[in-house]
Structures are given as C-alpha cells and as structure tokens.
C-alpha cells in the first residue's frame, strides 16, 4: 500500500512516497523500522503513542490506533503538525 511521509522523514527514506505492507499500522511501522532504522521512534514514543506533533491518516481518516487494520488498497498519510519556530 502507499504511504506518504512528511519531509522531516526523508532523511530516512530518501523520498516522500513509499510502498509499505502490514496487516495493521503497528505492523507497518515495525517493518518500516527494519527498513529505515530509527524512523519509528521519531514518530511513535515508548508508550506506543504517536508523538504529539505527528498525525496519521488512513484513507483521509485520522487514527491514533496502532491496531488499526489495513487493506492492501489503503493509503496512509503521516503528517507533522504545522507548528514550530
């Protein structure tokens, strides 16, 4: 399935759009971390929560549930908040 990433993570992936797999969001991030070591902890903390300035959408619907089940045709969008200075 397609996953869109914020620019802050391109240093890990090399591009903003990648193909991922997994039955749940947790699977996706676990496999992502195997491909791009360190990426998962930058967006998900040690309590398995998305970090406060990170938002995750599946098919344009926001979710904070890492057990969210996925289908092959789903599209994941990971965003960083429009904030900072």
């Amino acid at each position: 399935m397609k996953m869109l990433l914020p620019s802050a993570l391109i240093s890990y992936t090399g591009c903003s759009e990648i193909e991922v797999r997994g039955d749940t969001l947790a699977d996706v991030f676990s496999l992502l971390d195997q491909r791009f070591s360190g990426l998962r902890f930058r967006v998900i903390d040690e309590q398995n929560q998305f970090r406060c300035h990170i938002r995750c959408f599946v098919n344009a619907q926001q979710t904070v549930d890492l057990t969210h089940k996925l289908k092959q045709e789903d599209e994941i969008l990971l965003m960083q908040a429009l904030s900072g200075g």
Partner: protein
Amino acid sequence: MVTVTMLCVATRKGAWLVRSDTKRKVWTVEGPHFLGHIIHHMVLDPRDQQTILATAKTGHLGPTLFRSTDFGKHWQEATQPPAFFKAAEGEIGRTVDHSFWLTPGHASEPGVWYVGTSPHGLFRSEDGGLTWAPVNGLNDDPQYRLWMGGPQDGTPDGPKLHSVIVDPRDPAHLYVGMSSGGIHESHDRGVNWSSLIDGIEVMDGLDASHAEFHDPHCVRQCPGNPDRLYLQSHFGIYRLDRPKNSWTRVGKNMPTDVGDIGFPMVVHPHNPDIAWVFPMDGTNVWPRTSPGGKPAVYITKDGGGNWQRQDRGLPAEQAWWTVMRQAMTVDSHDTAGLYFGTTSGQLWASPDEGNSWHTIAEHMPQIYAVEASVLA
C-alpha cells in the same frame, strides 16, 4: 606538544565544530551538522579523542542520538535511543522528550556513556552510544519518582536531569543533579542513591530537607581535586569538600548588586581553588538576563572566598543575552581557555582564564552547550 583546541557547539538549530590553531588565536567554524535539529549537547569522548556523541530532536520528531567516529564526517544514529519502559496496561507511562546531558564513562570503561534526559531519567550505554538502557535504580525508585515531580515541576523547557558526574577515582561513584529534585550520589553505578542537599537553601517557607524543593542548575567536580564540588543553584553558589556532606554558600561573597544567581558553573582544570560563574538577573520575575544588561564572568581564586569581575572585551551596556547551564566551559591548557555561548548566538573565548574576551563566532542560533577538548 603541538595541540589544537576543539569546541563542540550545540544549538537550537544544529551543531558546529569550532577548531583553533595551536595558539588559540585563529578559529575555524565547521558545520552545521543536523541543521534544524535541536541539539542539547554534543561531547567528544576524551578516552579516544575521536568519537563524538550528539543528542538530537526536532520540534516534531522524537528524540534520538547520533555518533561519529571521524570528527563529524559521518554520523550513525543510535539503534536504541534512551526510552523509559512501556507502562503496564492502565498506567500512565513516561516518555523521553529529549536527551539533555551527555557524560562519558570512566577512563577504565571505554564505550560507557551516561545521558540525563527530560523528563528526569538516567540512561547508560555500554557500546559507545548505539544502545541505551535505563538506570532503574534512579528512574524507578518510588521516592525519586516523587521528587522528580511532573512537567510543571521543571524548567520552562521541562524537567532536566543534568550534571552527570563520574568520579575519576571510582567508576561506580556517580553524582547527578535534577532541576528540580536536588543533587544525589550513588556508589554502586546507580543501583542505590542518596541525597546530597544539606546546606543548600531553598525558597523561603519550604523545608530544605525535601529534595523536591531543590533546583541545582549545574554541578562540577574539580579535576584538580575530585573531593571538591562546586554548585550553581537556583539559590546561590556553593562549595562542597568531601567527605563532608554539607554545602557552604560561597556566593554570599559575590557583590550584592550582582548576586549569586546563574546557570553555568565552571571549574579550573588543574587548580581546585579557581572557579567561574556567569551571573544573571534572578530578581522579581527572573528575567534571566545579564544583570543590568552588563554581562560579566566572575572568578574566584580562593575557593569562593572572594570573587572578581571579568568583563574586558564584553559589551559594557545594553547586552541582554545570557548563558545557559551547559554553554560555558574551560579547556585543559596550563593557562586555561574559557568559552561561552550566548542565547543570542555569539561564541566568546578567553585565552587567559577570563581576563579578556573576544568573539570567535557570531550569528549562530541560540547556543545550548559548549564543550572544549584539547587535541594532540
């Protein structure tokens, strides 16, 4: 021996390496590294003089650490950055917001590093900074959890565990400071801890025997006499000579119109009677700027009995920056060089132990930390 001095400069927007010529007159600025990352601390390993560790996060991404073994040409990210344990179901867990204070381990333990975090946590690496494990004796002690408090008990940038000190005579003997939460020591590599707060004043009306009321800003151990410690606290400047357990407020000897409030504490590399502070305005709403807009370093040459102002070369007026707790340091030359970075992005140097000052870099981001190393 021909030597150069290198400064590791950590800022709110990245990190720089600043190298001197052999006379500490000409400086070369190299960077930025990690542009856009918040780098709270960057330290060269004194044991091999080539490994550098840097803490990093961004405004949006979580905390991590990077390691270079070739003076910053290449960086490797930690595979297991500092992180608290996952909380049991139904309990509220802690998360590391940022790694704040890096300390290389004992000379006899190559590869060992400690890092203090925000919120309060102490973590240890045994593989040169690639993987980190919690020091549970501190992080999970019920009494310490109480003293550590919550986010509202820390600095405006969060509670910070800092001043991680490894006794050069004993790798098992550690000190840490907690803002807020007091000063504590361990004699068994962090399994058990005891408080070291006797003699330190706290806010009027509070009980000074309670560690949670203490806010040490910076603790330093003297290389020239490891039994001597200096402390810049929220409530003054102190000295402790072990095996005593009671601090003496030597800041009372500072000029009354300047006071003894500040953040950095710097000790001489060889002479334990010499130390420096950088006072700030701690009156009323705590502006945390140089008192009167006239920045100055103060030196003691007699263990805190007397203090002299050192401001030659510094702005005489209308300079409202200050220096954060990790942003002032000293090198190890016989005539020590002193360095500080300001909240307005200037890097200042003194080749003569604070007698005169000049800038060696300007227009940097807000400087969080400066560390000096002398390279053979």
